[in-house]
């Protein structure tokens, strides 16, 4: 199969959606000629024009709110929020309006809105351009949350997000944009709520998201040499969250490590750990371990950033300590 980058995979999904459905349009800051801060939408402005690919003012409330309104009126807006760090500016429109609208109104309305946003650290961009705040939205019923780790998943899940009649937040890890992977030429989509076992294993279940999947896989391969067999599971969507696949794995391994780049406290791992501990209690041979970004804002200096973000070495140590529990 041909290999393309994570960035290209997303762009293809957008391109296909724009081509096949006139109700799909993009809006966001600097997504036009530049193609967004990470050039994901590059070329689409030239191809589809100003109506379909809309540069906006710096107005996160209006961007998300207007996209919500447009979705209510039958369009399928895809908005880009340049960094997920800026989502709190639109907190009300996301949390109180888009997410709750259908429910509050007794099911009268659909909000087929996709919010694409960029998360993750690793570029020394400091506290306002490095967060992974997906957990804020996991705690908000009414939203669906996508967090892909490979080009294949990125494309297939974005297609589903755009077709979904509910508001979806789609998180793209900036450090993955240049990563390459096989992506079929023909159109396909991936259902929400299906975790993917990225690598099978017997000894430890490792649940990871976004770039941590890549780091985890690399560690898992290294450990394979040392005779430790790690199963790596990528939930891919945090809401819906496929716990079944996780429970199946836990029944097999009895040991679980969760790794994410969101900060530890009340992060996605807290929920996953709590559920495993409740539902798979009898299968656990060791306490569920979490490895996450330390509970601080993201610092700028590389040495500090590396210290707070889980590194491959940290993952390795955590797996070994679990193994020896």
């Amino acid at each position, binding site marked *: 199969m041909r290999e393309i980058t994570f960035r290209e995979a997303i762009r293809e999904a957008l391109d296909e959606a724009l081509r096949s459905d006139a109700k799909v349009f993009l809006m966001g800051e600097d997504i036009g000629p530049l193609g967004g801060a990470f050039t994901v939408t590059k070329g689409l402005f030239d191809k589809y024009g100003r109506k379909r690919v809309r540069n906006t003012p710096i107005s996160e409330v209006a961007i998300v709110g207007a996209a919500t309104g447009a979705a209510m009126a039958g369009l399928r807006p895809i908005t880009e929020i340049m960094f997920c760090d800026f989502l709190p500016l639109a907190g009300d429109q996301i949390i109180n309006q888009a997410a709750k609208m259908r429910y*509050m109104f007794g099911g009268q*309305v659909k909000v087929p809105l996709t919010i694409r946003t960029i998360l993750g650290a690793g570029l020394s961009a400091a506290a306002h351009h490095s967060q992974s705040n997906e957990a804020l939205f996991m705690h908000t019923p009414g939203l669906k949350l996508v967090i892909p780790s490979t080009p294949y998943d990125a494309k297939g899940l974005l297609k589903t997000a755009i077709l979904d009649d509910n508001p979806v937040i789609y998180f793209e890890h900036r450090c993955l944009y240049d990563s390459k992977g096989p992506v079929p030429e023909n159109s396909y989509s991936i259902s929400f709520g299906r975790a993917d076992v990225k690598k099978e294993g017997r000894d430890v279940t490792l649940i990871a998201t976004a770039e941590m999947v890549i780091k985890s896989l690399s560690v898992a391969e290294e450990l394979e040499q040392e005779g430790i067999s790690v199963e790596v599971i990528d939930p891919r969507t945090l809401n819906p969250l496929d716990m079944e696949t996780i429970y199946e794995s836990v029944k097999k391994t009895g040991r679980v490590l969760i790794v994410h780049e969101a900060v530890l406290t009340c992060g996605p791992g807290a929920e996953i750990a709590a559920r495993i501990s409740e539902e798979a209690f009898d299968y656990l041979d060791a306490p569920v371990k979490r490895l996450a970004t330390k509970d601080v804002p993201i610092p700028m200096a590389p040495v500090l950033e590396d210290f707070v973000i889980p590194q491959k070495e940290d993952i390795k140590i955590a797996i070994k300590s679990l193994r020896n529990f």
Partner: protein
Amino acid sequence: MENKRNFLAGLYASMYKIRRFEQEAVKLFHNKELPGWLHSYIGEEAVAVGVCASLNRDDYITSTHRGHGHCIAKGADLKRMMAELYGKETGYCKGKGGSMHIADFSIGILGANGIVGGGIPIATGTALASQYLEDGRVTVCFFGDGASNQGGFHESLNLASLWKLPVVYVCENNLYAETTPQADHQPIRDIADRAKSYNMPGVIIDGNDVLAVYEETNKAVERARAGRGPTLVECKTYRYRGHWEGDPEVYRTKEEVKEWKKRDPLKKFKKYLLENDIIQSKEISFVEKKIEDEIKDAVKYAQASPPPRPESALEDLYVEQGG
């Protein structure tokens, strides 16, 4: 001529319907029949009615916490509204929304809103959709003087004017944001002046004069429909009751309320209709009687309706999809 007569009679009927619906709701609320909270629209009827008189059935409106008047003026069903106030299964939102979240998407009512200013970006978005789809619809966005200090107001009006969206922003300036007089929440008197910040027209209207409201907003609606962009319309008006039912009203005098009641939008318009021989007194009584009945029916319907099934609390969150 007959058309015009019917139109004017309709305006009166609509205002009367709001007035009586609200009075009834207030009564029921104090009888402890209604759960939740209640923000009455009494005194401001000319705004909703005058504005909605320019709108087609499929035009959109966004509303506020003080939304009953907007809904009735746009044509909402009193039975389903009242049932929603009661929190019944037959209500517009199946009891999930209540007074602050009534919506009727079949006639473009995009919902009341518990967040002050929360509907402004949304209205901007439906207008964007109309422009995009070239469906000829206009969105009217209702909000209060207090809401005009929200960030979303600024961002939305900027965007709407930049993109020439077919939306009319109708500010109901009733001189108070909850308990805070206008002079304590903004350093200007005429909110319409803020239109200049967005290079859009700003209009000030006597919000207690239903015809003035109709005529001026109609221009704004037609302007929007013609693709010439948004307008900010400020209607000066007043609410007779407290901010919410139960408000001790420590922030204003009885005299002030009395003064405003002299300019009552219903009385004023009725007088106009009678003095100009547009409608006979008998006809008005007839219309009023019909509305009384309609409201009684609505209350009966609501009372007789079943409460929602408890488990229905878990429904309506997501659209279930195939695939």
